[in-house]
């Protein structure tokens, strides 16, 4: 009972999507989380709400609005088309955008809560010793919040792998291009190919189990009492 080439293509595409999305999420998540952790702006609750929305919205809702945004007569999609020469709908880039939005709270929330625990004076002390902002980020912020960053990355990666609703709405189902593992599984079940469905499902199950296990193991290793749930958030 081995994976077929189509399944392997879906698997590779899924891993590629998760890797690219996670990388983008870490970069923008760090900045959003840092801003949220430090700001006294009145729009902070608004931003927090927007970022948390994917936690409660059915993925199909997000997928639906993204589909509208990706339609060629939309200003966003048309300017993307002009800029990059490709359409967003039913494309890998479109999937990345969808995944980033969908997984954003899973990255921002653990990062934000760990950044809030870093005393302002620690960073000011570093700057008085001659560290500029970028230096502070790599010498103080990231090392001190290493566990949160790892947890955020694992969550983003695993969550993207498990994505279904958003992908279904905006990705279409083009093998090798936008067909991810969860969609391929759905296809197998639809076409009553239960053997192939089993193989894929088991692969996905094992992967999720191992990634979660490693997150909790990382969480256990530290002795940070204030952060007993290593994820900092509840998984819906």
């Amino acid at each position, binding site marked *: 009972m081995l994976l077929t080439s189509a399944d392997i293509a879906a698997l590779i595409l899924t891993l590629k999507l998760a890797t690219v999305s996670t990388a983008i999420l870490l970069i923008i998540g760090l900045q959003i989380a840092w801003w949220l952790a430090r700001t006294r702006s009145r729009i902070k609750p608004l931003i927090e709400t927007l970022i948390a929305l994917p936690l409660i919205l059915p993925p199909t809702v997000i997928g639906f609005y993204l589909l509208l945004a990706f339609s060629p007569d939309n200003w966003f999609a048309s300017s993307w088309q002009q800029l990059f020469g490709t359409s967003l709908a039913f494309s890998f880039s479109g999937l990345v955008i969808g995944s980033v939005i969908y997984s954003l709270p899973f990255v921002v929330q653990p990062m934000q809560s760990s950044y809030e625990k870093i005393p302002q004076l620690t960073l*000011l002390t570093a700057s*008085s*010793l*001659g*560290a*500029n902002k970028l230096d502070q980020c790599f010498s*103080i912020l990231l*090392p001190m919040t290493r566990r949160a960053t790892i947890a955020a990355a694992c969550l983003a990666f695993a969550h993207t792998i498990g994505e279904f609703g958003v992908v279904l709405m905006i990705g279409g189902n083009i093998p090798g291009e936008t067909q991810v593992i969860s969609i391929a599984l759905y296809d197998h079940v639809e076409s009553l190919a239960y053997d192939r469905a089993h193989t894929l499902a088991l692969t996905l199950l094992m992967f999720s189990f191992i990634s979660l296990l490693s997150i909790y193991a990382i969480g256990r290793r530290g002795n940070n009492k204030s952060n007993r749930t290593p994820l900092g958030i509840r998984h819906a």
Partner: protein
Amino acid sequence: MLDININSQLGSFKLNIQTSIPTHGVSAIFGPSGSGKSSLLNIIAGFNLPDKHSMNSIYFNDQPWLLNSDATGYINRPIHQRRIAYVTQTACLFSHLTVQKNLQYAIDRSPENSNIDYHDICTRLKIHKLFDKLPEQLSGGEQQRVAIARALLSAPQLILFDEPLSALDEINREEVLHHLEQLHHVFEIPFLYVTHNIEELMRLADHVLLLDNGKLIANRPISDILPDLNLPLSRHQNSGVIIDTAVEAFDTQYQLIKLNLGGDQFLWVSGAYINSNSNSNKNAAPQSRIRIRIYAKDVSIALQAATDSSILNIIPVTITDISEVKNGQAIIKLTCDNHLILSRLTVKSIQQLGLAPGQRVFAQIKGIALLGAA
């Protein structure tokens, strides 16, 4: 000089200070809590910014740190380019780094041509044994010693201290204070030291800025500011004076140092007052200058020089001023040659002896503390 011109609303608090602070020795910022000491220090460091609408400026030896004028626009030198070090109440060591790596952090970011001696600093502050520990494994005093070493190793132009001893217990406080006393003589880096503790002020400061309610009351050398009866320091329970004076001789038989007050007047200080540090013999060498402290409560007054008293130091003085404080007590300002001494007496004694300004009397000094090299 550190030239400051701050006129700024900070929340509900208004800070209004125009002054110049010497950039050598220890300058202390002293005042009650809520007087704006730490706010001023944070603005000098660049940790807080005064409001942009008012005309503020900070110059460190002609180097603009903060400037807001119509001619130049708004200039704010980033903290990491000010070359300062900041020692806080809580040490603020980097918790993810060992002691050695905390120190290395400062060295890595110090200017290349700085000639700071790493081993000398670690030896002076006794931190070789702590190298591999994490900050959380250190006592409060050890943390503060590492923080001070880290500050020195960054080779700063100025070190800012925000009540560095206030979070320590008595034993650790004394130890760190002792280190600070030694260090400011060894290194030429100016210290700007915020405190509300008069003991720290007397032992460390060369120069004092007195703050109250966001305003500067006085900015003068310590020897000048302590005996001023118009200032609150003289009315403090532990008020006193600091005198920088020359060693005349050392009496080996009685272990006493003879100090020349000028005008053929001498004070005897017990050698036991010398801290058991390596500088003790140097302190006592004739002609070297040392700093002593005399508390007002240790000085009593007699109309005649007593010959039947155990008090060693009885010197003729002239009363220049009397100021009543609270609880039936008064502070008397005395001069001996050109030195000022304070005496704290009860109003009852003053009336019984009939003391008045201009009168020549004898000061009986019960205790003199030797603070170290002047």
